[in-house]
């Protein structure tokens, strides 16, 4: 046997690595699931050409005026048919010719209907001879990085790092405790810290595969930008993974059954799924709870990942997020080591 084979830390890490790779379900959750999710979201939120809004009008003259606007698709109909079409959602707005003017019938709580109202009014007024007081022109911007998919990919990455670290550690530790394997391990001369460290190291090895697979897919399929330095992105991924590994260790440090540890995991992760801005910006939550939201490790992780990928923000400008992640690594790890139940 060579030197490496005799190193217990190497052996422990390799064992963890092998056990994960030999678990088909784990492969699905770690590698396939995030890609499926990205595909799903990519399809749902793909960028479509600006919508053409369906509207109706009661006279031929009004219909022609409306049809002149490229944003509107106008059809002529009598008032009864129009009201019915409005009620069933086939048109967003009905322009009714009244003596001395035009009445717009629409639902003002529907944003599309309000848009239709603005476009229709502009078209009818223009047709009637209104001229713009100020000359304007449109410069259209379809920038990569401002699409929803660009926003959601770093969120998914953060969420995936959290999930795989927490589940990966939590379940295997509780399983080892249930099967008395932990007890057998501490009955040997194995240094205890190495057992826990092996989890973190094998996690980092998995991380490389996991992150590269996911981000390559996002890049190739959706052209998601990487504006910041890649090594800094790697630093954030490692920090995020360490923080959640430590948290997973803490959650699993006393639990004796799978049920108990699953419950604890969900309790810890659920608030972050909702609050940390995976699918929409965390800033949408009220100011009162913002300090709490910002202190969550997933918020810090996703902020940092978005900052790096979308804005190209430098490491130094995200010191706050780094500090939060480091704290979430150090404190749970130390506490977990203290209270860990080996049998």
């Amino acid at each position, binding site marked *: *046997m060579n030197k490496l*084979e*005799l*190193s*217990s830390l*190497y*052996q*422990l890490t390799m*064992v963890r690595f*092998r*056990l994960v790779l*030999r*678990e088909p379900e784990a492969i699905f959750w770690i590698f396939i699931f995030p890609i499926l999710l990205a595909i799903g979201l990519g399809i749902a939120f793909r960028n479509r050409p600006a919508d053409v809004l369906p509207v109706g009008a009661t006279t031929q003259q009004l219909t022609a005026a409306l049809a002149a606007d490229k944003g509107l698709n106008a059809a002529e109909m009598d008032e009864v048919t129009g009201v019915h079409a409005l009620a069933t959602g086939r048109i967003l707005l009905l322009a009714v010719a009244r003596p001395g003017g035009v009445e717009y019938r629409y639902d003002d709580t529907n944003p599309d209907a309000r848009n239709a109202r603005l476009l229709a009014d502009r078209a009818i007024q223009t047709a009637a001879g209104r001229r713009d007081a100020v000359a304007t022109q449109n410069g259209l911007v379809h920038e990569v990085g401002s699409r929803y998919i660009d926003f959601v990919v770093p969120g998914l990455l953060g969420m995936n790092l959290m999930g795989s670290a927490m589940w990966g550690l939590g379940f295997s530790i509780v399983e080892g405790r249930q*099967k*008395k*394997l932990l*007890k*057998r391990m*501490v*009955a*040997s*001369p*194995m240094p205890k810290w190495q057992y826990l460290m092996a989890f973190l190291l094998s996690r980092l090895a998995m991380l490389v595969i996991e992150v590269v697979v996911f981000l390559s897919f996002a890049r190739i399929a959706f052209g998601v930008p990487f504006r910041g330095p890649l090594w800094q992105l790697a630093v954030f991924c490692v920090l995020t993974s360490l923080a959640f590994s430590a948290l997973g260790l803490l959650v699993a440090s006393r639990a004796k059954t799978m049920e108990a540890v699953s419950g604890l995991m969900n309790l810890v992760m659920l608030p972050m799924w909702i609050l940390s801005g995976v699918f929409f910006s965390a800033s949408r939550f009220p100011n009162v709870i913002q300090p709490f939201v910002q202190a969550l490790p997933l918020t810090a992780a996703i902020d940092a990942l978005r900052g790096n990928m979308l804005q190209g923000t430098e490491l130094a400008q995200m010191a706050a997020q780094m500090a939060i992640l480091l704290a979430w690594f150090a404190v749970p790890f130390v506490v977990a080591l203290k209270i860990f139940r080996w*049998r």
Partner: protein
Amino acid sequence: MVDSISSMEKLASTTASRGGPPLRIRGLKKAFADVQAVDGLDLEVFPGECFGLLGPNGAGKTTTIEICEGLTEPDEGVVELLGLRWETGAKELRQRIGIQLQETQFPDKLTVEEALRLFRSFYRQGISVEESIRTAQLEEKRKARIGGLSGGQKQRLAMATALVGDPELLFLDEPTTGLDPQARRHLWDLVDGLKRAGRTIILTTHYMDEAERLCDRVAIMDHGKVIALGTPQQLIASIGGEDIVEFAVCAAKEKTTAGPSTRPPYGGLAQDDNQECVPTTVNVEQLIEIDGVQSHRVDAGLHQLSVSELHMAVPRIFAALERQGLHLSEFRTHSATLEDVFVRLTGRNLRDE
């Protein structure tokens, strides 16, 4: 208590050299909630012997062995292994002892070789992985996943993980519990081999045949205490007779009805189809007075006599029962075993627990 501990410590420190006995326990106590699992235990194990802790489930064997293995903290008492204590020499001790625990489940998806390579890496020195596989006779299963091993093979793997560090002292906690008879014999052969190699082994078991077969000395435990200690032969001799006679009797009685003849449940010696067998009592004094009969007890209608010089005693027992007008419905003899020792000492059967 304080005095006795400090004097014991003095005693211990005089011999607490590297060459101290493999295991020395003084005044060991451990309670869990309201159960006194170990209640004042003294033991000493000599180099090169196979020492057995025998007792029913719940006697405190596992608690005792886990305290010795440094996995459980005792409430009171002194434990010394190889002249070292857990409080001060844990690191060193872990390197020098080998442990097989009850019911350890190694990861199913790991192979035998991988598991042993892992355990080997924890020890500064030891035997090679190859050698441990050979010792445990798992050569054919080297590349097999642990999940696919039989119970006996898993147990041999557990034994191999205890051996890779080439331990001076080996702990085996109920190594054959739950194994089929063939796998048990296989494991016994393995332990035999380790004994021949001169290893000191401490094992717990609740099978007396296992203790008799494997152990040089046995401590019989009950309710957290050692109730007997010695070689299996000494212990068996201590109950006074080398053989056990077991019999059941009934009083002969003329049949009152002319129904179809019923055979008694057992092929008794003095049975007559015209007689009915009814349970009855035996005059025990007359039996005890017989030369060679050492003691008597009844267990579920079965009389047990502890007997020396079986060939002389049996005809006299027959004669005595005949005189009492009793008929035998069952009669057998066997050499006394550790089970009989336990029964004699506690009035209970080991396997009842």
